[in-house]
């Protein structure tokens, strides 16, 4: 048995269509069976409301008098793209204000426009024969713009890996605040209500399908950027008219210490055509698995600490290596429900047309990492191999002499097996001399907690270590913890010597 989209339209027109949310569907399938559910349900609505950084809007301002060909454009001091003819721009959600930085950005500009606030346009130009004007500053309202069209390259992630942090300091990430020592887990996504999770084969979700987008009737453009459904991480590119949107379903936000983002409410109606649709829409939080990723590892491939389901994440507590760790959602489940329910009303009232894709989206694609033709500098490229070390049993005065002779400020301290055990600086020695006490040996004054680097570590990561610890040198150690070199703030100058700058 199957239903056609025309039959579903007919049910809607006649006022006897059964429309349910994707959250309600699993129980219906459990109660009526797959065939029963197919007969009973006409449309399943999905919904999600969360941070979707890859969002923004095209805006057309109309021509000023005298006219200007805008080359650099700011909206409330947030720079927008100036490479689109004369009076068009694209404002990206994550672009930050020149003056307020992370407290205001492109997402806030979009939210201000939608709530009816005036936004200041500032633009400049070289001036041409046809566009003589060089600058313009004026206040704009959404209603006065010719077009304001949201177009989001990557929205509605099928699911998203959860995040934790194994380091001993707080991390500020796009996954929110991660406490040290795996002190919390943050996650995002509406699980059972997620659009692609209810249509993983992308039979119903594709180009041209009308959707709920921030309170407006939007449309799926096609696959989103970084679309990777082969691994369960499909995405959608979507568009909709900003003028029809509601601040209830569109909110600017700031991940402290990371940056600005836009919370987007998005829902897709799924016509229940056959048993396969029934099976797909019966998906529950318990069926959708994600990895808990350690964001303490600053590389592209971060280790997974555990696999969990959305049901476990939503329970509030996850067992991680025998410890109960509390979870936080970054997306709002209540708002996701609101989206799915509002979309349900739209379908029942015939306000949104149901169509099948005009062009399918590939359900088997796999996104690839960047092809890098040039690797960035590594510590071994700039480290100072003429490092001087000192034994832990040496007298402080000898250490002072060694520092002077070596013209250095840092002495890594090694034990008799040549392993790194500490570090002393000119400051430590000055302190010991200024306040003479019981300390006579290097061992007595050395810092035992040494921040180190390795030869193959990218220089950018070593620089972050220097900044975060407010220090000026890192001993470079090999796998046996032997000191093979030192990286000081002075060595960083070599990065600007031309070799790494093309």
């Amino acid at each position, binding site marked *: 048995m199957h239903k056609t989209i025309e039959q579903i339209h007919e049910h809607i027109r006649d006022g006897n269509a059964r429309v349910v949310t994707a959250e309600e569907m699993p129980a219906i399938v459990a109660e009526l069976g797959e065939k029963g559910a197919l007969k009973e349900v006409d449309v399943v609505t999905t919904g999600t*409301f*969360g*941070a979707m950084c890859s969002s923004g809007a095209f805006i057309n301002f109309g021509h000023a008098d005298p006219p200007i060909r805008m080359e650099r454009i700011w909206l409330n001091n947030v720079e927008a793209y100036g490479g689109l003819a004369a009076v068009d721009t694209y404002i990206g959600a994550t672009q930050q204000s020149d003056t307020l930085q992370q407290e205001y950005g492109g997402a806030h500009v979009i939210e201000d426009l939608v709530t009816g606030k005036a936004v200041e346009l500032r633009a400049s130009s070289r001036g041409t024969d046809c566009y003589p004007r060089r600058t313009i500053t004026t206040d704009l309202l959404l209603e006065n713009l010719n077009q304001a069209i949201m177009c989001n390259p990557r929205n509605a992630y099928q699911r998203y890996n959860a995040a934790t942090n194994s380091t001993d300091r707080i991390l500020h990430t796009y996954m*929110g*605040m991660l*406490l040290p020592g795996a*002190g*919390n*887990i*943050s996650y995002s996504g509406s699980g059972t209500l997620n659009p692609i999770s209810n249509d993983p084969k992308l039979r119903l979700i594709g180009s041209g399908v009308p959707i709920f987008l921030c309170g407006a009737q939007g449309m799926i453009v096609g696959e989103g950027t970084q679309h990777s459904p082969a691994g369960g991480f499909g995405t959608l590119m979507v568009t909709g008219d900003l003028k029809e949107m509601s601040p209830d379903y569109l*909110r600017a*936000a*700031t*991940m*402290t*210490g990371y940056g600005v*983002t836009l*919370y987007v409410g998005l829902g897709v109606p799924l016509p229940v055509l056959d048993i396969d649709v029934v099976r797909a829409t019966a998906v529950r939080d318990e069926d959708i698995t994600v990895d808990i990723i350690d964001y303490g590892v600053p590389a592209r491939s971060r280790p997974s600490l555990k696999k969990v389901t959305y049901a476990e994440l939503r329970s*509030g507590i996850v067992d991680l290596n025998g410890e109960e*760790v*509390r*979870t*936080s*959602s*970054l*997306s*709002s*489940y*209540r*708002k996701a*429900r609101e989206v799915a329910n509002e979309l349900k009303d739209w379908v029942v009232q015939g306000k949104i047309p149901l169509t099948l894709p005009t062009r399918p989206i590939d359900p088997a694609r796999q996104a690839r990492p960047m092809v890098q033709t040039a690797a960035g500098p590594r510590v071994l490229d700039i480290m100072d191999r003429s490092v001087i070390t000192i034994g832990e049993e040496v007298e402080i005065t000898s250490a002072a002499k060694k520092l002077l002779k070596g013209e250095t400020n840092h002495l890594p301290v090694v034990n008799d097996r040549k392993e790194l055990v500490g570090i002393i600086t000119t400051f430590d020695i000055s302190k010991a001399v200024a306040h003479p006490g019981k300390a006579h040996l290097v061992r007595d004054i050395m810092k035992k907690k040494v921040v180190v680097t390795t030869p193959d570590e990218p220089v950018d990561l070593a620089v972050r270590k220097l900044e975060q610890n407010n220090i000026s040198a890192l001993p470079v150690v090999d796998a046996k913890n032997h000191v093979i070199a030192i990286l000081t703030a002075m060595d960083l100058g070599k990065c600007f010597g031309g070799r790494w700058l093309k």
Partner: protein
Amino acid sequence: MKLLVTFSRGRGRKPIIAQVVRDTGVLINVERAVIDSSEGEALIDVPDDQCKLVKDSMAGLGADVRILDHGIHHNESECVDCGACISVCPREVFTFDDAWRLRCAEEKCILCGKCIEACPHRALSLPV
């Protein structure tokens, strides 16, 4: 009842909290304290009926004492009920109700401020 005690260490580095515990016999629960070389701030919890006694004793020793009537301020119109605050709070102030709406148990709050930073929507702030 929660009291915010601020003191400077200029006055002979008196052990104010210990002194007040001994003088009054009230068991003071220190929930949060930041003390450096020149000044300090402590958030303490005392039984309601002994609050005035503790407050007056501390003030007598030169500390500035303020009764905290409110915990963190939750702006419900900015809040989208995501729950980013839930796992960063050391006192489990935030929970979801049955409809996934965020609930804030203000009385448990020790004003550490972690949730203020963690809230993506700037919906949490210190009480005025």
